């Protein structure tokens, strides 16, 4: 008996020390979003009149409200739209370029940088951002650099290099411009590895002369709150039209209640946790006393 217990403990110890831990962390499965019912057919385009009416883009999202319930493990939203007065001959012609940007609410963020102090890697400096989008996904018909120049992308906040990051004034005056760039690219890199920032170069697909669609995956770690979906229409590097829509991530059911409880009655929440713990522990020992020992 004692030897079996020892072996079991060694395995547990190895797991505690992180040897077997990576098994725990895998990307979550995304629920497939239901197909959209609301696709609108574009009106038949006029056959090349002498003065062409300007193209405009209209779009919508498959789900306005995503319910974050106890079974929530991320979601997929479908952004779809149409080009009014489309002049492209077919879905495959590549006449237009469409970009879809889905962005979460801006939030304050602190970046820490490690340095070596007496042989140990410790946080030696911090940098504060007042506003960085909690989530940023960009999808396009082809790589952004192929059809638009950096200025126009930057002006419109399109692409991972153009994500709006507002540095806090007290942090910004302390560092050089190279360091500021390093901090910003660190945010992009870390958010990308957490799937909170992403780009999909061929994520927007034309399904007709004027209809297009893009699916955007939201990991479960996206903070609950409003999301903005922006759609841009390009032709030969020129921004022709844009459209904006909103999605809201909302806690529902027991999740909503528990969240509100924790924030509105924090001490009571702690007491409930303690009572729950005492009840669980005492119940278990009452049940197990008869079976073991």
């Amino acid at each position, binding site marked *: 008996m004692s030897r079996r217990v020892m072996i079991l403990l060694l395995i547990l110890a190895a797991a505690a020390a992180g040897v077997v831990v990576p098994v725990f962390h895998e990307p979550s499965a995304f629920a497939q979003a239901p197909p959209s019912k609301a696709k609108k057919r574009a009106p038949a385009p006029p056959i090349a009149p002498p003065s062409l009416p300007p193209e405009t883009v209209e779009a919508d999202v498959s789900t306005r409200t995503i319910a974050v319930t106890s079974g929530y*493990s991320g979601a997929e939203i479908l952004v779809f739209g149409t080009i009014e007065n489309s002049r492209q001959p077919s879905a495959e012609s590549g006449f237009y370029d469409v970009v879809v940007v889905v962005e979460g609410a801006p939030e304050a963020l602190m970046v820490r940088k490690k340095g070596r102090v007496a042989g140990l890697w410790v946080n030696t400096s911090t940098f504060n951002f007042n506003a960085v989008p909690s989530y940023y996904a960009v999808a396009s018909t082809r790589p952004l650099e192929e059809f638009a120049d950096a200025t126009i992308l930057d002006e419109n906040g399109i692409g991972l290099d153009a994500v709006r990051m507002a540095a806090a004034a007290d942090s910004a005056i302390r560092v050089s411009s190279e360091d500021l760039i390093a901090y910003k690219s*660190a945010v992009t890199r870390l958010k990308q590895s957490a799937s909170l920032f992403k780009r999909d170069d061929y994520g927007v697909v034309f399904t007709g002369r004027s209809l297009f669609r893009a699916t955007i995956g939201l990991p479960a770690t996206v903070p609950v709150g409003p999301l903005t979906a922006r759609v841009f229409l390009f032709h030969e590097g020129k921004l022709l039209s844009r459209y904006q829509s909103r999605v809201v991530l909302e806690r529902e059911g027991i999740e909503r209640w528990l969240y509100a409880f924790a924030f509105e009655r924090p001490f009571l929440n702690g007491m409930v946790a*303690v009572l729950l713990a005492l009840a669980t522990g005492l119940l278990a020992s009452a049940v197990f006393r008869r079976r073991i020992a």
Partner: protein
Amino acid sequence: MSALHLMNIYLPIAEMSESVFVLLGMGAAVGFISGLFGVGGGFLITPLLIFTGVPAPVAVGTSTAQLVASSVSGAVAQYNRNNVDIKLGVVLLGGGFLGTVIGVGVVQILRQAGQFDLFIALCYVLFLGVIGTLMMIESLQTVWKARGGVTPSMRRPGEHSWVHGLPMKMRFQRSKLYISAIPPFLIGAFVGFLAAIMGVGGGFVMVPALIYLLRVPTNVVVGTSLFQTVFVAAAATILHAGTLISVDLVLATILMIGGVIGAQFGASAGSQLKGEQLRLLLAGIVLLVCLRLGWDLVITPSEIYSLASPAGGS
């Protein structure tokens, strides 16, 4: 997707989704160790939760709630074997509450200074390293002597240290001790302080301190330590939830269910092992966690930047 992810559950305060089975398994594994050694297990569950992606403050806050559940079932199991010195436990607890309140104040100061996570890592490495090494040496010597046929004795009645010269002497019948109340009060305060700053029950300090400083018999140490942990962890849970909103009830409930089941098996397994074997095993686990945490401080990290929310800090 792996089978582990078939039963995912969303954790409202941690704001993430994780498999119920992974969380139950972690709770059970830590609960088993908790029941076996009489330690709260916080020094294992906090790093495990952080490894699975739970934000550090939520990992600390929620593991204190889990500690209440795993230690209360362990404490009841020990109480039923008459292994709890209630009087000694109450003295420890008085110090424990004081230490918890002081510890919360220190946490707030460190968070403002932005060095809380370094402090936590160094605390873990220092305490786990020193205690693990001491226990390893002591238990190896005891095992060695037992092999040689000499009966080891933890109690050396003729030996008097500075501990025995202090005033306010009290009689602790269950522990067969007549000592000053000041050392246990201070030990309790120190452990309460650790509970608040590290999110641990402090059994890894309490158990050796009771054995080596106060010479409390080994069989009473585990039960008395668990008794004190229940109340200190309860105080820490309420403070963490109240000041940091870092207790996730869904996560806590799942960990508790796994934990209390593991603790029951651990307690009965512990009664079949000798004291020095228990201490040797615990020393090994403590040293492994210490090495793992120390390694992260020394090796060149692949990413020198990290993100944190300015409010949370940890």
